[in-house]
């Protein structure tokens, strides 16, 4: 665990972690629509036990949580007192990391809010 945290801390500044949460959210959104549309078109009704849908939602949340965890580690680099407002690599990393954290929280809420109606629907009408 320690080693993992160390590794993450040494990762260079990257926009990729920042992009992951909203992309996963978008993917899950599409997945939800396809889930409903395909079930209704092919089976004519909602799946009674949506294991696949629950698995897809959990996977999306895990991916978002992973991006959020990496961002949290990067945002808390030790031995770097505030303020963080210089154009140094470290301050840029902190900025991106905090933005990623916030996006991860938002995306997780988005995924839950999208999944709830799917769980509530019982009928293709």
């Amino acid at each position, binding site marked *: 665990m320690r080693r993992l945290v160390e590794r993450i801390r040494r990762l260079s500044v990257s926009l990729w972690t920042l992009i992951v949460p909203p992309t996963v959210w978008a993917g899950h959104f599409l997945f939800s629509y396809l889930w409903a549309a395909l079930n209704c078109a092919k089976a004519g009704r909602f799946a009674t036990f949506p294991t696949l849908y629950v698995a897809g939602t959990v996977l999306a949340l895990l991916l978002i949580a992973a991006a959020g965890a990496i961002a949290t580690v990067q945002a808390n680099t030790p031995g770097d007192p505030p303020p963080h407002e210089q154009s140094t690599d470290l301050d840029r990393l902190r900025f991106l990391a905090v933005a990623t954290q916030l996006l991860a929280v938002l995306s997780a*809420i988005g995924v*839950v*809010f999208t999944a*709830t109606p799917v769980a509530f629907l*019982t*009928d293709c*009408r």
Partner: protein
Amino acid sequence: MDADNRIRQEGGTTAREATIDAIIGRRVTGSVLPALLLAACNRHQSALAPFGAEAASTRTLTIVLLVAAVVIAASMTLLMRHAIRTPGERLTHDQGMKLVLWAGGVFPTILLFALLAASLPLMRPAPVSPADLRIKVEGEQFWWRVVTAPGPGQLVSANEVRLPVGRTVAIDLAGGDVIHSFWIPGLAGKMDMIPGRINTLVVRADKPGRYRGVCTEFCGLSHALMAFDVVAMEPAAFDGWMAGQRGASATASAAAPGAALFARYGCGGCHAIRGTDAASAIGPDLSRYGNRATLAAGILPMTTANTAAFIRHPEATKPGVRMPAFDHMPEADAVAIATYLQGLK
């Protein structure tokens, strides 16, 4: 006028501005307010005066959402007022961040989720069984073809939907020509009528009475003149009505002079009257015309004069109507046909 004078003297406002103020003021209190109050009195076509379970829960949800919105807006306003008036440095950086986290993040998320969860059960359609009554309604420019209990012994009619109180009814909706939308505000939410597709709306009325439905998808020039009557009846009365309506129309009127005129003018090319040669389904079925409360799809009161006028000049009532004008028809003929049609009960 006193107030106007005072404004003119004190504020140096020009007389014209004061007059405009007075007019606007008078208009607001003189017409908008009563109109708003009157809208609340509308009991036959209002989502706020439900006669069915689905509309009732929609109204409850609307009230919950409205109250929530007002409470949120008011507390935000108060919070902002407080923030603007409070001198700086009252909160430490940490306290400020905590406030943002709880008031700006956690609280809205929980609140939105609660509102979402409160509204979702309404998306579940009511259960329906094959034994339940079905009514098929097709939207046409600019009227409604209504078939009660489709199948053997079905009852074909137009511009009027009758349903029994306390029983589940499945309404199968289709578009005959273009997309329409079927909405009985007091009964349930609206649902689109799409050509080539059947959408099913499951409803249950719980209060007998006469109500009104409308088309809520722009479908042509007379879209706003496409409504229909809704009659919710006690189950026993409904069964009696169904039994009585299925057969041929009152035969006594077959001898009426209007019957021959109806055939001679070729009205049967578009209209059907059960028990006569007229059997076309292009226009509204007129078999029980005399029983309807309105004509031209909920637009005019059912009187002989209105019917006669509509026969000669339907376009005067409904722009773009799909019935030709019979302007060469003598008025006496139109009245005779109208009398005959109104005798069909």
